[in-house]
């Protein structure tokens, strides 16, 4: 059973067809990187997967349960998406931490007030996760008192504290100074080693190559090429992929 299954996803903004029949399956413990030029629909794909956008057609299922499918050429969603939301977490490019709350409260509130988990256990889990990310001392700090790298690590902890089956990242280091990028990538790499199921949209090619089990190259709303990182990067098949990767060669 796949953790996430997206089949024949179509999505347009007005006349702009952004996702053209995209299918994607992610298995338990798999780390998938999505690369591609700006405007190719990477973010839109993640936003559809996390229900921030509604699809026009196609099918979305988590853990074998259908959340959306197509009837009479248009997508229908289950009435109550809430049970699906605990299956995934999303880490945003610009963190989107809650500025009026401490790090601890940012991390623990949703598990307690949304999932109704035991506050003591949630706090213990949060402390453990913060320690793992080197943020133990920051539990009582406010987001504005942290560096960008620290904020992004907090937002990863916030997502992990929900204990999702799968974690999505949308360019988690794009808003960071180069010297802070490393500390966030290190944390994601660590999660990959623990076989956290992840889908990562990134422009960090060497990182994608190092952590992924599978790399997907998207362009113009379709998946152009996908496969093991050594194949996509080392033995590129498609001309468009080659062209794109050339920009990253030094």
């Amino acid at each position, binding site marked *: 059973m796949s953790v996430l299954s997206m089949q024949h996803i179509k999505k347009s903004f007005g006349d702009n067809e952004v996702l053209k029949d995209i299918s994607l399956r992610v298995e338990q413990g798999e780390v998938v990187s999505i690369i591609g030029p700006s405007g190719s629909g990477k973010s839109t794909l993640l936003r559809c997967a*996390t*229900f*921030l956008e509604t699809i026009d057609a196609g099918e979305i299922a988590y853990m074998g349960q259908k959340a959306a499918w197509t009837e009479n*050429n*248009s997508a229908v969603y289950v009435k109550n998406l*809430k049970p699906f*939301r*605990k299956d*995934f*977490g*999303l880490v*945003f490019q*610009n963190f*989107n*931490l*809650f*500025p*009026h709350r401490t790090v601890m409260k940012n991390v623990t*509130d*949703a598990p307690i*007030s*949304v*999932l109704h988990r035991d506050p003591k256990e949630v706090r213990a889990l949060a402390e453990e996760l913060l320690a793992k990310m080197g943020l133990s001392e920051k539990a009582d700090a*406010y*987001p*504005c008192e942290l560096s960008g790298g620290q904020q992004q690590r907090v937002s990863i902890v*916030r997502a992990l504290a*929900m204990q999702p089956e799968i974690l999505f990242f949308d360019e988690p280091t794009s808003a960071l100074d180069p010297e802070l990028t490393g500390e966030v990538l290190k944390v994601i790499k660590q999660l990959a080693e623990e076989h956290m199921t992840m889908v990562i949209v990134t422009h960090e090619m060497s990182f994608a190559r190092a952590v992924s089990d599978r790399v997907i190259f998207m362009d113009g709303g379709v998946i152009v090429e996908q496969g093991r990182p050594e194949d996509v990067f080392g033995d590129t098949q498609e001309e468009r992929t080659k062209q794109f990767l050339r920009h990253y060669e030094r």
Partner: protein
Amino acid sequence: MDYGFIFQKLAEGFLTTLLIFALTLVFSLPMGLLVYFGRSSKWAPMAFLCKRDRSPGKIKCAVAEFKPISSIFRLFISILRGTPLMLQLLVVFYAPFYLFGIKLNTAWRFFALIIGFVINYSAYFAEIYRGGIESISVGQYEAAQVLGYSKAQTFVKIILPQMIKRVIPPVTNEVITLVKDTSLGFVLAYLEMFTIAKQLAAKYSNIIPLLVAGLFYFVFNYIAARGMELFEKKLSYYQ
């Protein structure tokens, strides 16, 4: 002229002024939020006319986008902001008589005054809240949605606290204006400080009562502004 007597009369009037001020804020601050909700209502009963798969004619879509609740509140807000408060107070005061032929008594003056102030200020507060809420980034809503917060939880836990911090400066302006606006009680001949000061000034042909009242307003405003400043400081632990 007996200055002690004047001061005492004005001090009594000041307590009434304070009461009008406090009641207006207590009711209009939360009511502003309700007005904001009405103003931002997305209910569009004709939306079915303009579904994606049907041919969307221009007029049809204009009808489809009609949001009756939002429109009513918008009209209500623009009238309240576009006409003199003094006139609104008189309308509220005389409304029961003209609408229902009810005889007006003295007690009604006080209620009419409070109702008039509350309605007027809630319209202003609603617009201030709207500005505060609309300045919060969509990312906050999206993060809350992905974490599974309900709409109500998102508003109460995430949006409202940030909104309150952002609206303190404009709300402070309204509070200061309200201190001065309480003097409009005189149009209903309600005995708050300004009405009393005016009567005393006329009775003794002396400007001192008005100057003393002015001093009261000034000191009151100073304290109110300081209070808001402290509140703002208290919320400055984050940006």
